[in-house]
């Protein structure tokens, strides 16, 4: 990608008064209004492949992204939202637009979860971002009930591959739908936390939240 530069062809003869950006200001309000219209049109014409928004949560800002099939990504800020969007563009489709309204139902369920009133999610999920054994494990994880935990070893046994403990670990570590697909409920056999895509503080916070409810 080439960034806008002032040294490109044709730019050298712009008058020095401060350029079009200052002389012809465009307000953020106007652009927001046009953006909303664009998202609506894109959706009508089935050109909106990935819609996303960010929300605030007790475990920090989260990025939510959905395809026509369902929720495809929940990301923690430490993963880098820019990097997450770049990956979605490459792996799913570059037709990516910010669309808060489209993610409203997801935001609502997450808010209910974080206030302790929701114990399971009722959302369509798009598992496109994981394949094979990892996806098999991730599809199993919602069966671990709210407030309960399992060990990596137990999960390996339940998906029919008791020796695949390390593979279960990496399936949890690469879960593209954390919180909604509860990889935070999987612990080491000795009861220690193991890893977490959102950091250990986030994993602890989620486990504490579920214990308290």
């Amino acid at each position, binding site marked *: *990608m*080439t960034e*806008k530069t002032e040294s*490109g*062809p*044709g*730019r050298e*003869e*712009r*008058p020095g*008064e*401060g350029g*079009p*950006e*200052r*002389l*012809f*200001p*465009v*307000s953020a309000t*106007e*652009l927001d209004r*046009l*953006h909303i*219209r*664009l998202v609506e*049109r*894109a959706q009508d*014409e089935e*050109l909106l492949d*990935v819609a*996303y928004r960010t929300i605030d949560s007790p475990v920090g800002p989260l990025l939510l992204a959905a395809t026509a099939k369902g929720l495809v990504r929940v990301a923690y800020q430490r993963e880098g939202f820019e990097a997450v*969007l*770049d990956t*979605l*563009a*490459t792996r799913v*489709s*570059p*037709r*990516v*637009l*910010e669309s808060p309204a489209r993610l409203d139902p997801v935001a609502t369920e997450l808010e209910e979860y974080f206030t302790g009133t929701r114990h399971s999610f009722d959302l369509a999920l798009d598992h496109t971002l994981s394949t094979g054994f990892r996806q098999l494990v991730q599809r199993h994880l919602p069966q671990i009930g709210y407030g309960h935990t399992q060990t990596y070893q137990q999960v390996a046994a339940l998906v029919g591959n008791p020796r695949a403990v390390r593979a279960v670990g990496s399936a949890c570590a690469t879960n593209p739908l954390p919180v909604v697909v509860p990889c935070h409920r999987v612990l080491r056999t000795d009861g220690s936390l193991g890893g977490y895509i959102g950091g250990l503080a986030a994993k602890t916070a989620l486990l504490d939240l579920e214990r308290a409810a």
Partner: protein
Amino acid sequence: MNEPFEKAVQRHGATVLRVCRAVLGAGPDADDAWSETFLAALRSWPDLDEATNVDAWLVRVAKRKAVDIARKRARHAVPTGELPEQPSRAGIPGAGDHELWQAVAALPERQRLALAYHYLGGLAHAETAELIGGSAAAVRRAAADGIKALRQQPSFDEPRRGADR
């Protein structure tokens, strides 16, 4: 193009709106041209070559969409004895910049288009000449004349005075 389309909207949305306003007047037609431009761009986005200069490409798409809308507007024009009331194409009064947009709208067409595609859209004189006809030198003169005419406008310098206060 593998980049999220949202980035292109954020980076180039304002530029495209300025171009549409200079070509069609600051009003609903310019808004429509903006929407049509980004919708067409979204459609083509996955097939667009990574090496494309997105800024210039969008300005060219905007040019086509503005021409479409201007044609549509001309087709719907009905000769009449009295002027009907119309939504202003001069932007929102009180927005601060509407006088300057009116001055742009009052420029001779070639000056206005040279200003739109070269000065606001950032295309080179030669690229602008391809879009609006004539030579690069003629486009250069038209753009310079347009800027000179705008300099007569009191609002042309307003932002600077505001910033010094």
